[in-house]
C-alpha cells in the first residue's frame, strides 16, 4: 500500500470528527439554554442526530441507526406529542430563576466530572492490563521487511506448517478457529532464511527467564519452542491475500523500520497485524495500533508469552476500514468473526471492570436530576409566549 494513501486515509477522520462534534456540542448547549420546550426538543434532535453521526464515524452503524430510531424517531416524537397535548397555551416557555440556574450548573458540572474522570482514568486498552515489559519495536530507523514470505517456505507442505503452528501455540489443535499461523523455521542448520534482512542474534540470558515465565501460562502454549540460539522463524499467515506484510525478526532485538522506504512499515505504524516470532521465547501475533498493543493470541484466549510495547508512528487513530482491510487480508472470514467476537468480549470485560462504578454513580445522578427537572416543571412559574 502506498504510504501516502495511508496517511490521507487516516487523517481525514479527526477533521470529520470535529466537523460533527462542534455543532453537536453547540446544539447540546442550546438545548439547555432554550426556554421554549419545543425549541429545546428541536435542539435535542440535532444533538442526538449528531451523536448518531459520531457513531457512524466510529463505524458503529447499528448503534447509530438505533440511536436515530429510538431517540429521534421514538422518544423525541413522544416528548413533543406530550408537550403539545398537555400545553395550556401556545409556545410555552419556562422562565428559570437564578437559583435554579445555579443548581443545574452544579448538577451538570458534577455529571461532567464523573464522566470525565471515568474516561480519563482508564484508557480503553483492551488486554492492556496484562501487558508486560518486553522487546521493543522502535519505528523510524531502518530495517528490512520481507516482502514475500511465500518465497521462503516452499519446501513445507501445508500440513507440516500447520504442525509447526500448533507447536508454537499459534494454533490450537481442534480448538476454536484461531489465527491461521503457519510457522516456518528458518534456514536449516541454524542459519537465517535466505533474504531475511534481520540477522539472528543469540538472545541474552535474561530472556530465558522471560521464556520460563511465559511458559507458566496455564494452557502451556509456550511449550515446545525452538531452543535458544536457533535461527528466527517466519510466520506465514497463508491468508487469502497470499502476501501479508510479515515481519520476521528476533524480537528480543531492537530493530526498526523506516516508513519512508518501507510501505509495510508505514502500515505497521498505522495498525497492522505484525508478527514477531523469534528463536527462543518470542512468539505471538501483535495487533499494533497507535494507542495500544494487543497480542491476537491473547485476544484469542491463548496466554501471551511475550508482549511488547510499540511506539506509534503517528497519532492517527486506526480506522475501522483499515482494521477490516488488514484483517481481511490475513484472516479468513471465520477467523475474522472469531477475533471480532473476542475483541468485543474483552471490551465488555474492560467496561465491566472499570466503568461499572462510574456508571452507577451517573445513573443515580441522572435519577436525581430527573426528579429535580420534574420539580422545576411542576413549580409555579410565569409562562409567557415567545415572540
Amino acid at each position, binding site marked *: 500500500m502506498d504510504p501516502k494513501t495511508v496517511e*490521507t486515509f487516516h487523517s481525514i477522520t*479527526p477533521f470529520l470528527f470535529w466537523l460533527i462534534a462542534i455543532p453537536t456540542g453547540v446544539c447540546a448547549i442550546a438545548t439547555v439554554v432554550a426556554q421554549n420546550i419545543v425549541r429545546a426538543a428541536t435542539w435535542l434532535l440535532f444533538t442526538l442526530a449528531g451523536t448518531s453521526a459520531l457513531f457512524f464515524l466510529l463505524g458503529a452503524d447499528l448503534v*447509530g441507526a438505533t440511536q436515530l430510531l429510538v431517540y429521534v*424517531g421514538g422518544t423525541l416524537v413522544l416528548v*413533543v406529542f406530550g408537550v403539545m397535548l398537555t400545553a395550556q397555551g401556545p409556545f410555552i416557555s419556562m422562565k428559570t430563576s437564578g437559583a435554579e440556574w445555579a443548581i443545574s450548573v452544579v448538577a451538570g458540572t458534577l455529571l461532567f466530572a464523573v464522566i470525565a474522570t471515568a474516561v480519563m482514568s482508564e484508557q480503553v486498552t483492551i488486554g492492556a492490563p496484562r501487558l508486560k515489559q518486553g522487546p521493543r519495536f522502535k519505528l523510524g530507523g531502518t530495517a528490512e521487511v520481507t516482502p514475500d514470505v511465500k518465497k521462503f517456505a516452499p519446501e513445507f507442505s501445508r500440513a507440516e506448517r500447520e504442525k509447526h503452528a500448533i507447536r508454537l501455540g499459534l494454533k490450537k489443535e481442534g480448538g476454536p478457529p484461531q489465527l491461521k499461523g503457519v510457522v516456518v523455521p528458518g534456514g536449516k542448520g541454524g542459519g537465517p532464511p535466505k533474504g531475511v534482512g534481520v540477522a539472528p542474534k543469540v538472545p541474552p540470558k535474561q530472556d530465558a527467564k522471560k521464556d520460563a515465565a511465559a511458559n507458566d501460562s496455564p494452557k502451556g502454549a509456550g511449550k515446545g519452542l525452538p531452543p535458544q540460539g536457533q535461527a528466527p522463524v517466519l510466520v506465514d499467515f497463508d491468508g487469502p491475500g497470499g502476501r501479508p506484510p510479515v515481519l520476521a525478526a528476533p524480537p528480543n532485538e531492537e530493530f526498526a523500520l523506516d516508513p519512508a522506504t518501507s510501505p509495510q512499515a508505514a502500515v505497521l505504524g498505522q495498525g497492522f497485524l505484525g508478527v514477531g516470532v523469534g528463536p527462543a521465547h518470542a512468539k505471538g501475533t501483535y495487533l499494533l495500533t497507535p494507542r495500544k498493543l494487543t497480542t491476537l493470541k491473547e485476544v484469542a484466549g491463548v496466554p501471551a508469552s511475550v508482549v511488547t510495547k510499540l511506539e506509534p508512528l503517528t497519532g492517527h487513530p486506526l480506522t475501522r476500514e483499515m482494521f477490516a482491510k488488514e484483517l481481511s487480508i490475513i484472516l479468513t472470514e471465520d477467523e475474522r468473526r472469531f477475533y471480532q467476537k473476542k475483541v468485543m468480549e474483552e471490551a465488555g470485560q474492560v467496561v465491566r471492570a472499570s466503568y461499572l462504578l462510574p456508571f452507577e454513580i451517573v445513573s443515580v445522578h441522572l435519577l436525581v436530576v430527573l426528579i429535580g427537572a420534574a420539580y422545576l416543571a411542576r413549580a409555579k412559574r410565569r409562562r409567557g409566549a415567545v415572540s
Partner: protein
Amino acid sequence: VPHLLFAFEYIALVPGIIGALVLIGFLLVSAIFSVWLERKVAGRIQDRLGPTRVGGKFGWLQTLADGMKLLVKEDVIPASADQMLFRVGPYIALIGSFAAYLVLPFGNQVVALNVNVGLFYMLAVMSTEVFGIILIGYGSGSKWSLFGGMREAAQMVSYEIPMALCILVPVIVAGSMNLSAVAMQQSGGIWTWHIFHDPFTFAAFWTYFTCAMASCKRAPFDLAEAESELVAGFHTEYSGFRWLVIFMAEYGSMFAVSGIAIIMFLGGWSLGLPLDRDLSELLMTVTPTFNVPLPFADSTVPINLGFVLGNVVNVVVFIAKGWFLVFVMMWVRWTLPRLRIDQVMMTCLKYLLPISCVLLMGVSVWRLGAMYVPFVNYFHWLLCLVSLAALAYLIFRIVTLAKAPPGTAMPGVRRLADLPGYSGPGQGAQTGAMS
C-alpha cells in the same frame, strides 16, 4: 491536535462531495419528474390532458415553471408563528427523506455508503421526517395547522409499525439487512425475486406498499392533501420555497420507500433475466480492465468497461422500477376515494398491523418447513407462474375493456338511451352514465 486536523489531502473529500451532489441532483430531478408525472396521470385518469403547453407537447417543463413561480413567491411567515420552528421544520423533513438515499444502492456497488444495516438505517432516518411534520404544524402558530400536523404525525407513526414488520418478512428470507446484498441475491431470473419466494412474502409486498403509501401521506391516506375538505392540514401557512421543500420531502420519500420495496421484493436492479449472476459482473468477465490515472494524485484506479456498462443498465432498470412504483402510487391516488382519519387509523391498527404480524410469523414457519418439506423449496416457481398469468390476464382485460363500448364490458355502466323509461335529449349518444 490542531496540526493533525487539517493534515489530510483535500482530494480525499472529492469523492464524497461528488457523491452527495449526484444524490441531491437525483432527488431534485426525480421530484421534478414525479410532479410532472403526477399531473399527467391525474389528468389522464380524470379524462383530461394535464399540462400540455409549457416546454413542448407534453408540458415537460411545467414543473420547472411551477418551481420558478414558487421561488419568486412572497415568503410569508405568520406573525403568530414560532419563527425558528417555522423555518427549520421543512428542512428537517427534507433531510429525513434525503438522508435515506445515502444507503440506497442503485446498482452493483453503486451506493454512497454500503452499510451492513442499511435497511434499518433507512427506516430509522425516514422516521425522523415525522418530527419535521410536527414542527411544521406546531410552529405555524395556527390551530388548524397544529391539528393537521398531529393528524399526519399520528398517521405516519402508526403506519411505521406494520411497515417495519412487513419489511422484516423478506429480511428473514434474505438473512441480511444489507440492501446491496439482498439485491444481489435476486440477480437471477424473475422467480428468484423475493416477492415470489413464498405466499407470505407475496402478501407482505402488498401490505408493505399500502403502509408505505400511508407513511408517505399518499392516497387514499392523503389527508394532508385534502384541499377540498381540510385545506391541506399541516402546511396551510406555508408558501413559496418552504412549501416546495415540504413537497420535495414527500416526493423524495416516495421514491425511497419504492426503492426499499424494489430491493427487498422486486429484485433490485435485476432485469429478471435468467442470468446466473449480476449483469455487471457477467460483463466484467469478458471486457478488459483499464488503469485510469486519477487527477491530482499519482495513483490509478482500475476501471472495467463491462462493469461500468452493466451498472449503467442496472441503474436505469432500478430507477425505472422505482418510478413505476411511484406511478402506481399516483394511479391509486387518483382512483380511490380518500379515507377519513378514523378510517385511516382503523385500517392500520385493526387490519394492517395484525396482517403484518401474521405474515412475519408465517414466513418464519415457512422457512422452518422448507427444511423438512421438499415441495416448499419449489413453491416460488408456482407462485411466479400464477402471478405472471394473472398479470397477463389483467393486461388483456384492461386492453379489451378500453376498447369495448360502454354497457358491454363494464358492469354498471349503461348508455343513457338504454335506461328503462328514459326519454330525452341525447338519445343514442355515446356518453355513459353510472347507474
